[in-house]
């Protein structure tokens, strides 16, 4: 047990310090778990409790391949420009419409990809309008972190929770999407207060934006049609996956396979968005967390947590929400949720009665996803957005982001707490 704890804590410290490549750290940690030996081959590859969660790995791989192909069409740039033109050149309306586009895109695509697609369009529009893009970029990444929480495939923590607890795409839609819509509406309402002072734009500049042709963003119409058909089938597959007994990971892989066959793209193109580094990082994490599980550390932590809350489900739910929000604001939510999943699993197993079914999982997902808005380093999407802003000559400081992030995260956490309490305790 002590070997497993030492390896895990050291690896976690190295990951948080960001001085070393996190994938290498996770794989070295996993290697040590095998060599010490805390874990053996059957544990690593075949154990449902301790091993690598292949459902997570292959769902992410399938979605990454679909996104690689979808990106070649230019459809998201089309939607973003179309939305911008509906705003008639008003910077505030443009910001709000792009937030809505970003939230929708993030619900079906990884947040980082949504940022990579929408941020350049935002810079193009701001360049045409001659306005500062920083408020728009920040508002968009806040919307991305919120929108990603809505579905099983929107954010990696949801994929981990969904696979580990066998929560379906529909379960996420029914339990997470309502609160995400509420948080988004409130976020849109406070946006004019948070980002005051957007400069007025001359008629000439507005005309420049209105002359943008969204149809020019579409690079391959035939591919677009195929992608839309396959995406509809994949989303339908996610929804009916419990009924047809095909896991979402297989639905995503089948969708990716059909697109690869029909798109006739080169290997480098359909694998362009596959983040091998991230997949290997998760493999390493699963093995390290598996080591803690196998040696009884997770069970012990779960028992301690249960003793601390005294079996009070409401208190446990709120603690998970707040702690997850705070921790995810400072460290990557993927390792955090991967570690917390077995602990929450233990806590959930102690809950009796059907009404509070799964509430701890939604609490973990909401905290893990929305906590990303707390600071500039709270999520991968934030880091990517800050990089794009810096390269465009409009750097966003940690303080500037975090000041607004604290306000937004406080509001969203309060809304989530009220939602969880009302839905799973008062109205259950």
């Amino acid at each position, binding site marked *: 047990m002590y070997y497993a704890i030492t390896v895990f804590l050291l690896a976690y410290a190295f990951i948080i310090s960001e001085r070393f490549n996190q994938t290498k750290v996770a794989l070295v940690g996993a290697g040590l778990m095998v060599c010490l030996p805390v874990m053996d081959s059957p544990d690593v590859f075949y154990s449902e409790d301790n091993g690598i969660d292949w459902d997570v790995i292959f769902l992410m791989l399938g979605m990454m391949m679909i996104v690689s192909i979808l990106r070649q069409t230019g459809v998201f740039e089309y939607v973003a420009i179309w939305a911008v033109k509906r705003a008639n050149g008003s910077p505030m309306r443009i910001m709000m419409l792009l937030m809505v586009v970003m939230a929708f895109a993030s619900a079906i695509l990884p947040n980082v990809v949504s940022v990579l697609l929408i941020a350049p369009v935002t810079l193009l529009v701001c360049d045409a309008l001659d306005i500062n893009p920083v408020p728009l970029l920040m508002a968009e990444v806040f919307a991305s972190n919120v929108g990603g929480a809505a579905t099983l495939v929107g954010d990696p923590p949801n994929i981990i929770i969904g696979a580990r607890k066998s929560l379906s795409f529909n379960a996420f839609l029914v339990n997470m999407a309502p609160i995400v819509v509420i948080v988004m509406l409130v976020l849109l309402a406070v946006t004019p207060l948070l980002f005051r002072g957007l400069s007025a734009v001359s008629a000439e500049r507005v005309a420049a934006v209105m*002359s943008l*042709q969204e149809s020019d*963003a579409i690079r391959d119409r035939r591919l677009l049609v195929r992608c839309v058909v396959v995406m509809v089938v994949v989303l339908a597959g996610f929804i009916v996956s419990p009924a047809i007994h095909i896991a979402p990971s297989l639905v995503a892989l089948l969708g990716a396979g059909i697109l690869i066959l029909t798109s006739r793209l080169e290997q480098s193109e359909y694998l362009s968005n596959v983040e091998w580094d991230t997949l290997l990082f998760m493999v390493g994490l699963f093995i390290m967390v598996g080591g803690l599980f196998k040696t009884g550390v997770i069970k012990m932590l779960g028992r301690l947590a249960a003793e601390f809350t005294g079996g009070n489900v409401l208190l446990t739910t709120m603690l998970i929400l707040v702690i997850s929000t705070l921790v995810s604001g400072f460290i990557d939510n993927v390792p955090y949720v991967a570690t917390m999943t077995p602990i929450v699993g233990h806590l959930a197993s102690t809950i009796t009665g059907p009404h509070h079914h799964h509430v701890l999982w939604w609490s973990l997902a909401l905290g893990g996803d929305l906590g990303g808005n707390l600071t500039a380093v709270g999520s991968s999407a934030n880091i990517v957005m800050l990089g794009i802003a810096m390269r465009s000559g409009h750097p966003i400081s940690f303080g500037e982001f975090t000041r607004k992030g604290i306000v937004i995260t406080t509001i969203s956490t309060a809304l989530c707490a009220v939602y969880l309490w009302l839905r799973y305790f008062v109205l259950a």
Partner: protein
Amino acid sequence: MGCVRAEEIVEEFPVVNIDSPALDAVRLLAEHRLNGLVVVTNTSDTPYAILPASQVVRFIVPGYVQEDPGLAGVFTESMADQAAAKLGGKTIRDVLPKQRQYVPVVDADDTIIEVAELMARVRSPLVAVVKKRRLHGVITASRLLAAALKD
């Protein structure tokens, strides 16, 4: 062929300081129809960057189009016409990639096979030649091929 050394086929090439205006660098390249530029800093005698013409052309491509090449098609004519004007006030340092790129450099007594191998590997039509750790000149792909055929 093996006897020809890098310093024998070296050419003089325009050298620009990293903090000089980007627009001047573009103008220099356009007016003299050059293959590229050598960028240096005040603190080092070796080149900071070797920029083939195709990389200098990149200066006029807005950053967001470099992030998402599909947006090039969305650019209106008036926006495209202003692309070079947007370089006004920017230095070469501002428009170079933030992460420093590999600089293809050969030693003055390297053979042309060594030079050709480097050019092919890094896909650069020009490489810098240094002698005693100082910039000696540049070898272009066309000059290298001419030397190879001559032998």
